[in-house]
């Protein structure tokens, strides 16, 4: 099993750490160099964690668990109007991003009101392409509960709801988890208390993701998403010149490739692994609802009968 970890330290000699992780059979998910500091998100085999820890200590860096890394999260506001944006939505999205998740912000077309709110089929499908949906709702207990009854119809991924009242998860219908003390906030969240609330949100999402991981481990994907990423990077050179943020976005059981489906799906289907199988044997290559991107979902072991 691979552990999602984040390393923060000096840029000096950080390549040694990267090499170590690769030698151990781990994966580097993301590397950001900011002036003299480097932030690396990686997956490390759980048994070799202490070796990496020793190395990071030697380099005077900090190694922490980042349960959000390798996931794609949708932060969803009822609309894109000033009522919800920019502050609260962006704060949540940015905070989760800092913790290692890839967040996409979504504004619904008709998400307002507790009686008239609805999801369109397109929105529902788009949300279902993510690992977790975070719904950012408002101030009133009655409204949060009433709205939750209707709005999440057809969403199959875990739903995390935020709002102002302190409710128990059981009180909010259809929600996997609920985090209070948010609500409709029209200022930048920077006070100590507000930052604590954001911390609590990332903690809750981390737990939900861990549950998803546990569930996946029962019937593991035939190929690990970071492996798919690595093979695409090695076999499709065009991905290097791709200017989208995170051209290959990792998800819990697949990846999103930001290349046009029409032109590239065959090339991706025919990617060869050293084990002798091709991509189409271990994963489904689907057109994504997001622009004309490609969505790759790894097949579970129960379907293919093997794990590479």
């Amino acid at each position, binding site marked *: 099993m691979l552990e999602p970890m984040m390393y923060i330290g000096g840029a000096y000699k950080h390549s040694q750490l990267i090499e170590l992780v690769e030698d151990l059979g781990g994966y580097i998910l993301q590397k950001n160099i900011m002036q003299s500091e480097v932030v690396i998100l990686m997956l490390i085999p759980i048994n070799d964690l202490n070796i990496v820890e020793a190395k990071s200590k030697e380099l005077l860096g900090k190694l922490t668990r980042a349960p959000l890394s390798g996931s794609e999260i949708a932060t969803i506001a009822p609309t894109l109007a000033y*009522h919800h944006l920019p502050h609260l939505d962006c704060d949540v999205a940015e905070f989760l991003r800092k913790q290692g998740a890839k967040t996409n912000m979504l504004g619904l077309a008709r998400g*307002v009101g507790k*009686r008239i709110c609805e999801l369109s089929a397109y929105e529902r499908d788009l949300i279902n392409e993510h690992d977790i949906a975070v719904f950012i709702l408002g*101030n*009133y207990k009655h409204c949060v509960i009433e709205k939750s009854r209707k709005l999440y119809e057809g969403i199959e991924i875990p739903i995390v709801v935020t709002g*102002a009242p302190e409710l128990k998860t059981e009180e909010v219908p259809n929600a996997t988890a609920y985090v*209070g003390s948010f609500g409709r906030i*029209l200022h930048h969240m920077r006070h100590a208390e507000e930052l604590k609330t954001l911390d609590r949100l990332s903690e809750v999402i981390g737990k939900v993701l861990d549950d998803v991981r546990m569930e996946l481990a029962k019937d593991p994907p035939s190929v690990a998403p970071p492996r798919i990423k690595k093979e695409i990077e090695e076999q499709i050179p065009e991905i290097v010149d791709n200017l989208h943020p995170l051209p290959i976005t990792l998800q819990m059981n697949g990846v999103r490739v930001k290349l046009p489906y029409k032109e590239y799906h065959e090339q991706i289907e025919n990617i060869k692994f050293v084990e002798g199988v091709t991509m189409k044997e271990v994963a489904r290559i689907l057109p994504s609802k997001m622009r004309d991107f490609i969505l790759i979902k790894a097949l579970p072991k129960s379907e293919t009968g093997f794990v590479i």
Partner: protein
Amino acid sequence: MDLIETFIVETTDTEVGEKTTRMLIQDTIADLSLTRAIGRLKVYVDPELPLFIFVALLRLGAPSIKVKDFAKVEMGDIGKDEVKIILSQETNIGKLQSKLWAKYGKDNILQPDRKILVVKTDPLKDMDMLRDMVIEEPKQEVLDRLIDAIALRIIPEGFRVRKHELTNDYVIFVASENTLKPEWVAKGKEILEFLRREDNA
């Protein structure tokens, strides 16, 4: 925030809703610098109906700025059809110029000196009109911001059915997701009376 004399949020959701709504209104008013424009303010929210009433007594103060407030309007040179505007300060020249351009066209406005504008027009006909020309209406501008604050930021988006009354002294906004009932509109008026009564006391 102390500039607003009365600031009441009344709601059935007293646990959290009251506090957050208050914070939301404070943020919006500060963002759009409306603290001076609002004298007294009361908001009534019932999320179950649902109903949102926003009533405020306004103090719009600042009168509109006219050309004669900051400039002398004179006849142009003898024998020419011109009006000369001599400005005492340059602050409003941009707005004045664009108003004049819109009215007479760029060709007919000359600026021989920094603080002098010459308009090619019949001075007997237009001089008085130019003197009283309104360059800026701070009142209107404040009202625009107020509507932006109330209608586009404070009242929840789902509350699409709205009735409002806006004058120079007060504003009433009644909003709901469902058809408005006459008693809700009456409640808005009642709150206005309440705010006024308190004013007299």
